[in-house]
């Protein structure tokens, strides 16, 4: 690609993504507060799987809300959560994706707050969640910074990560926000809160939000269940507003191409979410030539293989050149 790409391997975490960093912290906090039950929302299922895992480990009851649409496209993760002893409840309102799962989790939580902790899965929601979740993920940035200094002798030129609510991105950014590295968050084109949003207040925080002229929240649309969210964590809106980070968006087709590219060239099958960040790097390779780019590989792609099988031709792995045919008509 003509640049030096460093991958922060959050995909190697137990349960397959960065989500476990946040979940373990919150689950311990729940126990400390005397709560016996965790409630969570999940999009791709990775946060749900991580929450179910922590609940199993700590002997807590666990209920995970998931949009009906996402339960279909991430069926593997639904079964994983159930294996781990969690109850998965489908959110059937609105767009039946992440936003609606959050609504349902909040409704559960207000009714059960005496026994339940809401283990929110991204850097959003009411205070103190955005701050707490960022602190629990800053380990990503702290580790990456130390590793970069060993490998490069300095910070990288660019730090990039995908952004749904923005937890993996804020985690890696927090290691570099005080330095000189350019910070680039990558949103899906169909869920670009900063790219297409205006300020709004939903789910307990004020941030950029995709909404209509009347303030009705729009439905995001993305190939990736984990990024299918019309809002973004408030700290990202702040970083964008002060010009410290910038936010790009990529299309589903670019993401599929990046998914195939990393699989074929590095032997790493990424989750569709971090494939967004790679898709941007791939598109911007000219601009990035000769630079060092740190990418947060927030999760692995096992959960997405089934969905990709439906989208790519039966022998999609041999279409050559790392590019997908990008034919939406064939998506499953």
């Amino acid at each position, binding site marked *: 690609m003509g640049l030096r790409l460093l991958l922060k391997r959050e995909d190697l975490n137990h349960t397959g993504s960065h989500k476990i960093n946040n979940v373990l912290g919150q689950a311990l906090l729940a126990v400390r507060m005397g709560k016996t039950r965790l409630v969570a929302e999940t999009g791709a299922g990775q946060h749900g799987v991580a929450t179910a895992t922590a609940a199993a480990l700590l002997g807590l009851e666990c209920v995970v809300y998931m949009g009906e649409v996402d339960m279909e496209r991430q069926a593997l993760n639904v079964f994983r959560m159930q294996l781990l002893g969690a109850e998965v409840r489908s959110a059937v*309102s609105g767009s039946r994706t992440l936003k609606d799962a959050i609504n349902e989790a909040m409704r559960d939580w207000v009714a059960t707050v005496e026994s339940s902790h809401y283990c929110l899965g991204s850097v959003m929601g009411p205070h103190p969640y955005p701050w707490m979740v960022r602190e629990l993920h800053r380990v990503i940035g702290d580790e990456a910074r130390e590793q970069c200094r060993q490998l490069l002798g300095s910070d990288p030129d660019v730090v990039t990560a995908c952004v749904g609510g923005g937890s993996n991105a804020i985690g890696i950014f927090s290691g570099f926000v005080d330095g000189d590295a350019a910070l680039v968050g990558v949103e899906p084109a169909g869920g670009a809160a900063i790219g297409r949003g205006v300020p709004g207040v939903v789910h307990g925080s004020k941030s950029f939000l995709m909404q209509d002229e009347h*303030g009705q929240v729009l439905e995001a649309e993305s190939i990736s269940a984990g990024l299918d969210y019309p809002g973004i964590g408030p700290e990202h809106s702040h970083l964008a507003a002060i010009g410290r980070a910038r936010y790009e968006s990529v299309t589903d087709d670019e993401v599929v191409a990046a998914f195939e590219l990393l699989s074929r060239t590095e032997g790493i099958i990424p989750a569709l979410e971090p494939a967004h960040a790679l898709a941007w790097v791939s598109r911007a390779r000219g601009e990035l030539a000769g630079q060092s780019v740190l990418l947060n590989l927030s999760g692995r792609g096992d959960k997405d293989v089934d969905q990709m099988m439906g989208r790519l031709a039966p022998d999609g792995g041999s279409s050559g050149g790392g590019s997908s045919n990008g034919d939406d008509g064939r998506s499953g």
Partner: protein
Amino acid sequence: MSTEPGALEAALRARRSQGGKALVPYLTGGLGDWQAGLAAAADAGADAIEVGIPFSDPVIDGPVIQEANDRALADGITPLAVLDALGRLDIGVPLAVMTYYNIVFRFGLERFASVLAERGVAAAILPDLPLEETGPWAEAADAAGVETVLLAAPTASDERLGRICARTRGFVYGVGLLGVTGVREELASSAVVMAGRLKQVTDVPVLVGVGVGTPEQAEEVCRVADGAVVGTAMVRRMMDEGPAAVGELVGRFRRALD
């Protein structure tokens, strides 16, 4: 703080000083023949009416009011259309709009407050706007002469209840249980407890809502509270049977409270 009470608070205080209990039904704006529903409710003895401005993500609402919001939005209702309709309505009882903060934020705080005042709407209820964040809206509302009704949750400390009651206008909305709107088999014990705790700290009318679904439950909570807000039961009636049935149900609540 010592300003004249607004139209909503005046009506509720008048009911109380006559030894009565206040009845405030809720209907979702834009749902079917909702304006006829409001008129029927007023005729049947409502002291004031709460009118929902539909929102895409009504997180404090259970399935029935969610469905009402979705249906009204699918029929193309907008915030301004609800307010304009309220402005043309002349049903003789104070109106309070209930909606979510993003609707108001997007509309513009000052503009929303002044449109409410121009359309003759007495008050606003914004359940997802916590006390700590109420300032800018409440100032705009005060300036326009619009009452801002605050909610008090069962989890709030007495100290917090005091601060909520000091800032609320119109009445204080005691949330009857931990949970979302919806009809329950029985009145939660928390409803009466909530009413009692609020009565201890304020002279502002104390109304309890959320989980008050039958005339018997309203009567029970009003042994302590100054009144009740009834939402889901009204909306269910509106969706299933229409405005006349809403009037009939309001009448039954009225008789139970009198």
